[in-house]
């Protein structure tokens, strides 16, 4: 009896299931990026613009919640054979990816997909960081920065100075005068290795490790515990002890950028990427500027090195996805949609010389919002890149940075002598390097 109703009912249900619209023909590919916050939004907006600018390809951009998470997730995805086509990877991940066998080198990708890129147009400091020993870039520089010294103009005026200090000795004197004038935080110190260890070593032309910071082989050994880097740490400790500097980190409540922007501290070292943040968030009473990082008076100043990230192409994807990725690479390396877009919306610098030139001609650096950033480019080009100022090729560098950071923290907090802390950091770092070397036994850096 019921059968009379069941069959037509089933028929009706099947007919009622909406016929799926034929899926759009857009070829999709994944792009994973690491930045979060305002910069993450900028990248997501750039992806959206790319999707809207053409109808053939669609990029699926996913923020990974941090540079290190982006690296971890890409590695995990690769192991599960679900890697994205493009990934934005930070500077510290360069060695891992170069030795992985899981990437398509940028030069090869550009050649295979007819992307016209003038490799010589990249700033030497940038291209040297991402290039092999033969000078071939394996990734596309994307959002890069360098470190600058930010200073409070009003505070300097109060002690009778018009220009930022030119070297560390002068900086120390300025801090002494500032303290006497009543400022209780002349300098915001934090435990960031990029600024306190790496940038200082690069600009002073002091090696971090043997074998030209690891470029020449995986058997490099850390040497930062012998030489000027220790002197800088001792100087920073003296600043803390004399009351010129204060520790400003997120853990103490206010990080250095906030402390500088609201006028509590008068000097800080940080990335040019924070230039946009300070512009947007500084108190009205704070008049500030930027200057190149100072070195010790007796050491010459060479270029600072970059930080930030580049875009890598992962291996093992389909030809369609690579075609889409190629279009995206063209988009982000073009002037208007790439270089200029990043420079306008973030504090990052233009990665190509022609890009910088065009921006200057358009009056970009005369605009009050962006003025001062050209100092970053000057810092990158302060001198021809030397073998130890181009960057580093040290395995598991994130771990080495972490080891250095906990030792530096202990030294700054007075728990350990500075030289002992640096020696311990170098020892821990060398253990990491030896294990890394053994893990990749027999392999050579490209």
């Amino acid at each position, binding site marked *: 009896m019921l059968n009379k109703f069941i069959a037509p009912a089933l028929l009706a249900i099947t007919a009622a299931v909406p016929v799926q619209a034929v899926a759009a023909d857009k070829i999709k590919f994944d792009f994973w990026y690491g930045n979060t916050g305002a910069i993450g939004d900028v990248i997501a907006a750039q992806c959206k613009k790319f999707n809207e600018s053409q109808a053939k390809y669609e990029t699926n951009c996913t923020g990974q919640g941090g540079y290190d998470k982006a690296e971890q997730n890409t590695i995990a995805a690769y192991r599960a054979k679900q890697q994205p086509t493009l990934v934005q990877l930070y500077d510290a991940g360069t060695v891992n990816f170069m030795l992985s*066998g899981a990437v398509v080198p940028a030069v090869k990708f550009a050649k295979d997909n007819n992307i016209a890129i003038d490799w010589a147009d990249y700033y030497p400091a940038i291209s040297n960081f991402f290039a092999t020993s033969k000078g071939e870039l394996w990734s596309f520089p994307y959002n890069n920065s360098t470190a600058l010294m930010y200073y409070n103009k009003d505070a300097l005026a109060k002690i009778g100075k018009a220009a930022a200090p030119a070297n560390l000795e002068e900086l120390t004197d300025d801090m002494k005068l500032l303290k006497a004038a009543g400022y209780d935080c002349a300098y915001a110190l934090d435990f960031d290795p990029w600024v306190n260890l790496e940038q200082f070593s690069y600009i002073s032309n002091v090696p971090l490790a043997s074998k030209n910071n690891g470029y020449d082989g995986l058997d490099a050994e850390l040497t930062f515990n012998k030489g000027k880097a220790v002197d800088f740490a001792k100087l920073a400790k003296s600043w803390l002890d004399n009351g010129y500097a204060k520790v400003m980190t997120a*853990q103490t*409540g206010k990080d250095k950028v906030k402390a500088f922007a609201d006028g509590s501290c008068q000097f800080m070292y940080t990335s040019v990427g924070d230039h946009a943040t300070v512009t947007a968030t500084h108190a009205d009473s704070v008049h500030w500027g930027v200057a190149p990082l100072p070195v010790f008076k007796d050491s010459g100043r060479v270029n600072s090195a970059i930080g930030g990230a580049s875009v890598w192409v992962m291996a093992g994807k389909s030809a369609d996805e690579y075609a889409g990725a190629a279009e995206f690479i063209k988009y982000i390396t073009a002037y208007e949609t790439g270089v200029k877009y990043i420079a306008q919306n973030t504090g990052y610098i233009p990665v190509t010389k022609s890009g910088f030139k065009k921006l200057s001609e358009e009056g970009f650096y005369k605009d009050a919002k962006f003025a001062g950033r050209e100092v970053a480019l000057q810092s990158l080009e302060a001198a021809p890149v030397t073998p130890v100022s181009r960057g580093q090729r040290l395995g598991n560098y994130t771990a080495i940075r972490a080891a250095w950071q906990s030792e530096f923290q202990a030294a700054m907090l007075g*728990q350990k002598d500075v030289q002992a802390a640096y020696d311990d950091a170098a020892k821990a770092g060398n253990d990491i390097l030896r*294990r890394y070397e*053994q*893990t990749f036994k027999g392999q050579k850096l490209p």
Partner: protein
Amino acid sequence: MDKRATFPNPWIAGAFIAPQLLLIFIFFYWPTGQALYWSITLEPPFGGGNQFVGLDNFRAVFADPHYWESVVRSLIFAASVTGLSVGFATVLALFADRGLKGHQIYKFLYFLPYAMPAAAVGLSFRFIFTPEAGIFGALNHLYPGLWDPSRIGWQALSEIIMGQGWKMAGYNFIFLLAALQSVPRAIVEAAALDGATILQRMRYIQIPLIMPTIFFLVVINVTDSFVDSFGMIDVTTKGGPSRATELMVYKIFLDGFEAKDYSLAAAQSIILMLMIMVLTIFQFRHMERKVHYG
């Protein structure tokens, strides 16, 4: 009459337990097997090309002074959290059991901390313990520099101990309350008639009778504080200042995911697993003797 319950059909029995066995295999035995394999080889981050190195990874772990420091820290953490949370929960349960006015609301409120995610608890405690504001801000105003978990190691450790202890107290509370309610009322009332005070009743009658539950909770709390403390640390102190809150489980995360040294992390995981097993066996052998059942 044979009172044993037997299931006549082994195939259906197998089908019933298969899903659970599958879960245990996928989420425990398979990853553990993989960790074991990685701990005796050198695993590159992207996979492929493992080299057999025998016990070298374990030797590297034992040779690292930071590792031994983290072991000591983890033991201190486990002992403190267990003592704090079981002790605190026992007190709460004993008084909630008395059936005073509003005890229904208390039962609900005391359990709530356990239902909160560790990240939320950690964030709240970070703000509660911040040196510039709140109660500690006032204290620092009187004695400058007294409280600063971002600089002083033992204060950071206390912060996470209190956070984790507070959270686990909720869990322990429910078990202890249930245990107390299974204590026959007659015994407690008889003691009251004999003139025992409230505290004497608690100490000589109620607590000994709920010892099995307390023992169970101690085992669970110790295991949990070794394994589940990751969320709390990652949100509040991130292992700092200067490794002061770097417990074993956090070190595994740092070595494995931050440093991409999977083999070292796998070796540490295996050691941690064995250590918890030994601790649990120890607890069963020595502490259980003192527990009166039934």
